[in-house]
């Protein structure tokens, strides 16, 4: 069973979507490790190391996602998580920005998948399976 670490990054306390993601991914047969709200990059990374996770899925709803996620890929590499997948989704930037630009910026930061507001977790399941080696 593949392990996915989920949580809400930074000073963000939006808990509802986090619970929905946990519920859905668990139902879909993943081992979900939820670090919860108000989580730092280290919280995600430490959890991923101990649980041998294949994917870290970062949520951010309060607009500071770009600041909170910066340097996360480098920190993963520093911690020995060379091949870990990084997803990010939610209201990850301030205001209404062109999403292709936003996606580009986050991909440059080392995120493998970047999702705009309104994407449901159910819509992403197939992509996750594909990324995790077609399970």
């Amino acid at each position, binding site marked *: 069973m593949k*392990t996915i670490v989920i949580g809400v990054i930074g000073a963000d306390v939006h808990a509802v979507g986090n619970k929905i993601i946990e519920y859905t991914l668990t139902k879909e047969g993943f081992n979900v490790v939820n670090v919860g709200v108000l989580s730092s990059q280290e919280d995600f990374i*430490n959890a991923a190391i*101990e*649980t*041998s996770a294949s994917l870290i899925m970062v949520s951010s709803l309060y607009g500071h996602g770009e600041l909170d996620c910066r340097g996360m890929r480098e920190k993963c590499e520093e911690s020995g998580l060379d091949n870990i997948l990084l997803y990010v989704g939610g209201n990850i930037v301030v205001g209404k920005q062109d999403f292709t630009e936003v996606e580009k910026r986050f991909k440059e930061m080392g995120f493998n998948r970047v999702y705009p507001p309104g994407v449901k977790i159910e819509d992403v399941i197939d992509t996750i399976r594909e990324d995790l080696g077609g399970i």
Partner: protein
Amino acid sequence: MKTYLLVDFGSTFTKLTAVDLEKEEIIATAKAITTVEKDITLGYKKALSRLIDKIGYEIKFDKITACSSAAGGLKMVAIGLVDELTTEAARRVCLGAGAKVELVLSHNINHHEVDQIKEKNIDIILLAGGANGGNKECVIHNAKQLAKSDIKAPIVFAGNKDATDEIEEILAAANKEFYICENVMPRLNVLNITSAKDQIKDIFVKNIIEAKGIKKVEKLVDEVVLPTPNAVLMAAELLSTGFGGEEGLGDLMLADVGGATTDIYSLSSGLPTQMNAILSGLEEPFAKRTVEGDLGMRYSSLGILQSFTASELSYWKTQNVDIELEANKRHDDIEFISSTDEDYIADDIFAGKCIDVATSRHVGTLKGVYTPMGVMYYQVGKDLTQTNYFIGTGGVVISSKDPVAILKNGTKMASKPMELRPHNPEYLLDKTYVLSAMGLLSMDYPEIALRIMKKYMVKL
């Protein structure tokens, strides 16, 4: 009359407590210097004859049972993966089992670290790493490193259960003494102390006391059953939670200032007491013990000196106390016994500092974070603000003229607003050193042990 003799083989003193179980009182106590280097029975016999002298007649005890921290106590190394997770969980298991954690290692251990384990004469190795179903490469690497070495100490494996079969093969092939336990952190941030702790206690009773030359006292006493700090932790837990119809005291903290270490115990769930705090990090045990090896009244008095700021040192100078001189005096002569008023004043200052610094390291802390919903706080560690009782023990606290002044150093301080220290506890003194003895007695008679503790704790 049914009587028990409870013995504590300490690093310095062998302490005897004779208890009358029917009257539920302490008949007498006595102590003598521990003689584990030569023959542990000598000190015991001396203490026993002092006890008999005090009582005035020979007693045939129904049972004699002992705990020990003699010959260096129980020295352990805690090995885990991530510092804040399985490594910390392993460390807490060692402390909860009453051990001195001599070494804490994380991630893949190297040859130098293996050498350190050898040099430190470790009694038991606790090997953890990985949540169940999680990382097993690291713990397997570490098992191989231990297998390759000529380390003789028993190894307790309490890591990722998925690695168990391989670990068993590796350690068995190398003829190591090893034990398999439940994972100390089965899931992220979940702490599982009991299985590994009980195993450590078993090994202590079966092997360690023998290796340390303590076992031969079992000709004279029925059994040596626990490391002393474990007995104290059991007593404190009983005193806090109560037993059957006999009520406990609720949440409490205990500070034990010794010659080499300062131990702090807290008995409390430590959950947040304020609305806007969010608990973060590894789960905390209800019965928590921390040990500070750099804070002690004799062997470790130079460590206390380090904790004073330059301005504090200069303040005490104006009060005619030369902290530096006094710390060195105690360190250079560990048998130093305070006799003058100046000695006692310096003792009180040092003990206060020990409790202050050790409490800072024991209690949880808050860290503010500004969110769109206002200020929130991360709480890391235990919230002990609502603790009902703060108990003092250890020679320096017991013999002080003003123990409350010392113990107050463990409570709320304006200069440390983010530490979750007790706000307004009642102070108690373990005047007759009953705690370790009652921890031992509680194994057979918890209710009586509890009532005796409540009777002999002195309200300050």
